[in-house]
């Protein structure tokens, strides 16, 4: 079903991804609400809208390390910002930021708000990685029938990689090209956590994390904060400046948590394929019409599999396409011009917000050195589990 009212992305701002959070005992702290308030003000300046226009606030739920409880309503107080549409925090694993965007868009499409913010903060790096994994391992399947064996979120992607290499005869080096490509993109993105270009040899020489994947082939830990401003298209048009219009949306959850107990083709990413079909149908486009894509991909292999599932590259050819430069800036279908999760950074609950920040820049043709020439149609994809669910939005440039 098409949106009842046109929805536009008219403003965006984020802090650079990185290690921002300080240890609990540090005398001076970095505070989540201060970081996010700066983003809200910057995003509204970017949109050119007054604060009184805001009718709805959809927050991403913060990490458990954030001490402030009920962060959303606290934040509304910090900003002295009332809302007549809705104020809520959403949580959907890695998809959380996408759900915030989706919720804000629905508030506008349904006529309950003229302007809505999708916003949030994800601070987590003050917790050492092994301790953090004690928490996130509890998401990696059934707490009693999977977790006791020592899985982490990354272990599922590593097993995707092993299966992909087995089925398609791809090498680790072919997959690792994705990391080199994304780092080159990140070198051009001021919001990126890792901006120094790397060679394929350097990627392959890193210590193993989850074999066959090493340090530069997997997601880092990151802090971040971001705010998107969505508006009714009539409001966007009245501003007299470029914006991005929401043209299609697709969602699918396969009814499985991390692993399907009925053997399936795990690397087909069926949820992504189904969500993409729905989004393309609503947008009345096909994958060949897409100019660039920001894909939620915590590992090299994930970018390969999802780019195949949503039809941007042929099945089994994702790694080769990356190696041939097809998915790089200047290539046929640039993927993750922001640098993606591996290099731009991965504050998980708001990672999808960063995808929209990138698309807002690209579709308004102001992404500088990493601008995709003539970018008109872009997609953002986010997921949870091992792409057990996918949420895909199609955006188009409007001047």
């Amino acid at each position: 079903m098409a949106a009842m009212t046109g929805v536009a992305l008219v403003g965006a701002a984020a802090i650079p991804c990185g290690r921002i959070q300080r240890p609990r005992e540090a005398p001076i702290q970095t505070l989540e609400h201060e970081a996010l308030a700066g983003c809200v003000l910057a995003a509204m300046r970017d949109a050119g809208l007054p604060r009184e226009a805001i009718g709805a606030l959809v927050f991403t739920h913060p990490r458990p390390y954030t001490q402030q409880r009920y962060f959303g309503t606290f934040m509304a107080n910090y900003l002295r910002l009332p809302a007549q549409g809705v104020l809520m925090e959403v949580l959907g694993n890695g998809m959380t930021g996408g759900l915030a965007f989706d919720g804000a868009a629905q508030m506008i499409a349904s006529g309950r708000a003229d302007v809505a913010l999708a916003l949030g903060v994800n601070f987590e790096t003050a917790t050492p990685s092994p301790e953090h994994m004690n928490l996130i391992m509890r998401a990696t399947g059934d707490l009693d029938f999977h977790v006791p064996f020592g899985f982490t979120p990354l272990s599922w992607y590593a097993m995707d990689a092993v299966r992909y290499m087995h089925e398609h005869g791809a090498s680790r080096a072919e997959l690792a090209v994705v990391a080199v490509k994304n780092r080159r993109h990140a070198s051009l993105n001021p919001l990126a956590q890792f901006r120094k270009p790397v060679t394929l040899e350097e990627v392959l020489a890193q210590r193993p994390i989850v074999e066959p994947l090493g340090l530069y082939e997997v997601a880092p830990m990151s802090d971040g904060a971001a705010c998107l401003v969505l508006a009714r298209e009539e409001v966007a048009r009245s501003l007299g400046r470029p914006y991005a219009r929401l043209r299609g949306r697709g969602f699918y959850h396969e009814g499985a948590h991390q692993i399907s107990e009925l053997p399936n083709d795990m690397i087909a990413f069926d949820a992504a394929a189904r969500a993409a079909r729905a989004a393309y149908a609503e947008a009345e486009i096909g994958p060949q019409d897409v100019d660039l894509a920001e894909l939620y991909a915590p590992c090299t292999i994930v970018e390969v599999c999802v780019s195949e599932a949503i039809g941007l590259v042929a099945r089994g050819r994702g790694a080769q396409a990356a190696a041939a430069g097809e998915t790089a800036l200047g290539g046929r279908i640039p993927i993750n011009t922001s640098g993606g999760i591996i290099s731009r950074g991965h504050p998980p609950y708001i990672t999808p917000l960063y995808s929209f920040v990138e698309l807002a820049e690209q579709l308004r043709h102001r992404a500088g050195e990493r601008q995709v020439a003539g970018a008109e149609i872009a997609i953002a994809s986010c997921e949870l589990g091992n792409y057990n669910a996918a949420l895909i939005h199609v955006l188009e440039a409007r001047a």
Partner: protein
Amino acid sequence: MTLAIEKAAGRRPWPPRQSEFTRRFWSALAEGRFTTTRCAACGKLAFPPRPFCPHCWHEAIEWVELRATGTVYSSTVMHAVPAVFAHEAPYRVGIVDLDEGLRIATRLLGVTEGFAVGRRAEIVVLAYEDGPLFAARVLA
């Protein structure tokens, strides 16, 4: 079939909880039997075991013993691991498709090189000091 029982050092890093319902699975495992539930109506198996059928939501189920053999679908070697598993790292985990058409994920034993995709494996019991876990041992 009766599962091989292998001694494992120390306590289970993340001991599974048991309910009145799942206790039956863990008790059987301790005795060397790998069991799960089958729907009395549609006949489909579930894993983990459930007090209803997840496929048709019928509420009558029966416990069945599995052959406990299967084929490795994929695997990995874990180097970066949660703190509670640090003393066991690096270790292998894998996905095994059981011959009855169920997919499980567990520790993978008996592999020294490569990822064992497509190789046959059997379920074994790891007898920790505080109770059992299961694992898949890849066959030679």
